């Protein structure tokens, strides 16, 4: 079930909230948690019921292992083996569903073999779930998971607001909140803020991310005919699309979490304001960075084993991050680029500090943009083609196809109403300018302190209603000649 679907907003969410608080009100906290677990499974199974087998099995296996790991009577050596086994199992499940075909393809290519590819469905959120459960297993090994019961663990693992795309949470961030009796009653301070975040997230998704999506899919479908300026705009569009898409999801997840009195950790902090690559990774997908730092970088030795090992460790972290995003060499390259620049940044940190901040920002933003090209491209070759287009540096011209994907109904309406012809690039310029301004100059939701006022009430209503009405845009039929 998508957050931006009618069934979720109009049926699933209201029902779950009401049932959850009604059960809690009657003192059946266990019942409320069972309900939350079952409905989380419904949420997931709504995409494809087959996901449930894998996710269910994964949760059961992980809980069993974590119990074994948490047993203080077990020897350290035995625990190490257990930890190794459970991490391997998790990675194996992930590998099978996510990387089997990628692996087979590359083996076939390398050794001229022809192993058959499998028609696998990638269970939604499995990448997030795997990391979250690995973290839990490690924490159990360290003796930090104080005997949670199965229900607590299962709700923590399957909590639907964060089930399909994070944030990657740690047990300590969810389970205590879930069991806090204060949180079993509706808290309007949380609820109102949650509602506002959900409305903002929905609007970001429907009005900004989906809007850029048109330009991006146009651009990547017609790489051959892009002008230099087209390629540049398509690059920027994807940079904004991915940010608004992902952060809108997170906003909605956090908002829904708050409605249940569960504060999920922040995932974004205006990443495009970053002035260095290190800064960027502290602001972008924060919970992933945290996971990789805690469970990959530091266990590898972090920066404690000399300069060279530090660089190698950074590189490993970013390659893992790249591969985690998807089974394609484009993601590996993306991870490699970020790793390389991170290493360089660490090496020349003092010199970097002397550059004016504006230049720091510009260089960081440009690099992030270029790396996103490979992230989005279907192949490395396609990514190169787009970069080539840009560096050809032709006379500035924008294709009409690209302009068409930026057409704002408001501008078109004004044009026909006032009968004043406006430049065809006006829509695009306005929209890009608007996006730049809100991403760079405005404080983000986390920085602003939320206070319920009548002004933001009106805005919430407007965003909510217009968002809901825009979810099923009738995809206009392009009238084709027979």
């Amino acid at each position, binding site marked *: 079930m998508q957050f931006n679907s009618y069934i979720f907003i109009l049926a699933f969410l209201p029902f779950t909230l009401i049932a959850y608080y009604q059960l809690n009100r009657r003192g059946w906290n266990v019942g409320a948690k069972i309900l939350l677990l079952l409905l989380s499974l419904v949420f997931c199974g709504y995409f494809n019921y087959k996901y449930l087998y894998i996710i269910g099995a994964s949760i059961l296996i992980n809980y069993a292992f974590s119990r074994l790991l948490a047993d203080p009577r077990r020897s350290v050596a035995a625990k190490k083996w257990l930890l190794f086994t459970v991490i391997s199992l998790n990675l194996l499940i992930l590998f099978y569903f996510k990387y089997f075909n990628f692996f087979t393809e590359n083996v076939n290519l390398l050794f001229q073999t022809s192993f058959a590819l499998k028609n696998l469905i990638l269970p939604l959120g499995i990448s997030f779930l795997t990391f979250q459960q690995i973290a839990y297993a490690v924490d159990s090994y360290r003796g930090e998971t104080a005997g949670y019961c199965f229900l607590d663990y299962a709700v923590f693992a399957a909590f639907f607001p964060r089930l399909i795309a994070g944030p990657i949470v740690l047990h300590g961030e969810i389970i205590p909140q879930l069991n806090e009796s204060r949180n079993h009653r509706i808290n309007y301070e949380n609820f109102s803020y949650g509602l506002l975040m959900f409305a903002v997230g929905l609007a970001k998704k429907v009005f900004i991310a989906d809007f850029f999506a048109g330009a991006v899919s146009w651009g990547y479908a017609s790489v051959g005919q892009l002008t230099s300026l087209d390629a540049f705009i398509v690059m920027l569009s994807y940079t904004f699309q991915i940010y608004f898409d992902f952060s809108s999801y997170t906003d909605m997840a956090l908002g829904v979490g708050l409605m249940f009195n569960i504060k999920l950790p922040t995932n974004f902090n205006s990443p495009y304001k970053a002035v260095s690559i290190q800064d960027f990774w502290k602001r972008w997908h924060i919970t992933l960075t945290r996971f990789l730092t805690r469970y990959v970088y530091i266990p590898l030795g972090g920066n404690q084993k000399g300069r060279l090992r530090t660089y190698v460790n950074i590189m490993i972290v970013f390659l893992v991050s790249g591969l985690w995003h998807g089974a394609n060499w484009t993601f590996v390259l993306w991870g490699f680029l970020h790793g390389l620049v991170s290493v360089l940044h660490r090496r020349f940190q003092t010199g970097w500090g002397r550059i004016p901040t504006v230049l720091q920002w510009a260089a960081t933003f440009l690099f992030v943009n270029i790396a996103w090209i490979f992230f989005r491209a279907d192949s490395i070759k396609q990514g190169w083609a787009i970069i080539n287009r840009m560096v050809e540096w032709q006379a500035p011209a924008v294709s009409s196809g690209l302009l068409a994907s930026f057409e704002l109904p408001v501008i078109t309406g004004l044009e026909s109403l006032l009968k004043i012809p406006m430049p065809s690039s006006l829509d695009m310029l306005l929209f890009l300018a608007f996006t730049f301004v809100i991403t760079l100059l405005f404080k983000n939701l986390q920085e602003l302190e939320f206070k319920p*006022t009548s002004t933001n009430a009106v805005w919430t209503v407007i965003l909510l209603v217009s968002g809901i009405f825009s979810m099923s*845009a009738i995809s206009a039929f392009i009238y084709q000649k027979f």
Partner: protein
Amino acid sequence: MEPKKWTKAVLGAATAILLILMALNAVIDPFVQYHSPLPALEPYYTFSQEYAMYWLIGRARHTPAEGAVLGSSLSNFISSNKLSQLSGKKIVPLKKSMGRPDVYTLFLRESFKRNRLQIVYYEITFPHLSEKYPEEIPRYLYNSNPFDDVKYLLNKEVLGMSTYIVSGWASDALDTNHKKQRERQAWNRELFEVDRTQLSSHYSTLTVARSLYVRHNKVADKHSVIAYRANASEAVEKNIIPFLEKYPHTRFVFIVPCISILNTYDQVREGTAGDYLGIYKDLMLRLLQYDNAEIHMFSDVEGFVDNLDNYKDRVHYCPAGGDLIIDGLKSGKYRITPQNIDQRLAHQKALAERFQVSFLKEGFKGEDVLALNRQLIALGYDCPATVEYDKRTTAAVARFQADYHLPVTGIATADTQALLQELSRQTTDPHSGANPRRSSQ
């Protein structure tokens, strides 16, 4: 503001606004999903082709009728008004550009729910019979799941149309000038059944030439013949036969419209004409097994389908084609029977075999192109002496046309070819040694 009050105000206001707008969409119902247009607002409904998939279902569902005509843009000029006169029954047009049998089934099913249709006119265009409707069909409008209605009622496009209709009505109600109102009514009543622009299109051989990209060559593709047979039979069995069986008292009049001979001509060049016409025959005989089916075929009407001046592309015929079909339905002259089917299809094949495409253009290959290139070279134009009509040939033809004050198209039309022929004969004739390049200056 207090958080509790804030939350209640926001949720209350959002719910109220959503309900009001949903009610507006349900009452105005711009795509006639639930009811026919309200009488006072009727003139303000616009049914554009862009949203046809949305309102056609409503038209099928809510128009009282005794008969229907189903078709694609190839039925644009088969007017439902004329069919109503012809049959003496009220015929509702259910036509969709890019229409295919799978969509006709949706329309027909809806229409039969309400009406006891006595006659159904059904377009069968053989080259398209094997295809499915290529665009997305909004299935939620075609099912009976009430929860899916939310997608219609909470839709900004629908809301936009509702607002448009209401504001049109309101501005006319405030305006005392009723003339404008009546004009608008008249404009809306005028029936354009699929594509208004086809009325003002230009129909000529040159337009057809511009719309064509390739000419088939002599390579038989037996695989596509097999695939065609399978898909076309499936379309007939799944989308047509069930209706013939379920409604034995409804007369089904199948119309094979007068598309140009080019399609059969290509098949002749490929060497597959016999195969395809054989399949058409089997399909038609299958339909004729039912007493309530009759077929009228116009794809072999000599003097019309072999004259490309009647077309704007391979298949779209001029308004006169519509009259030809209506007259043919009236007289029964082009009706297919098991007795005449072989002779009619043989006639179509013979027409195609005799047919000559009068022009050559980019993308064409063949000995005739080679001859053209040689003539151009002989006259001093720069182009390759190959069997392929490529960019350079196009440029050479365009220059030739400019030099001799012909319309510059880059397409070797009949006029261009005739002049070229004549001039190159003169240059090979030693007695008239005029240099054509100089003569044009």
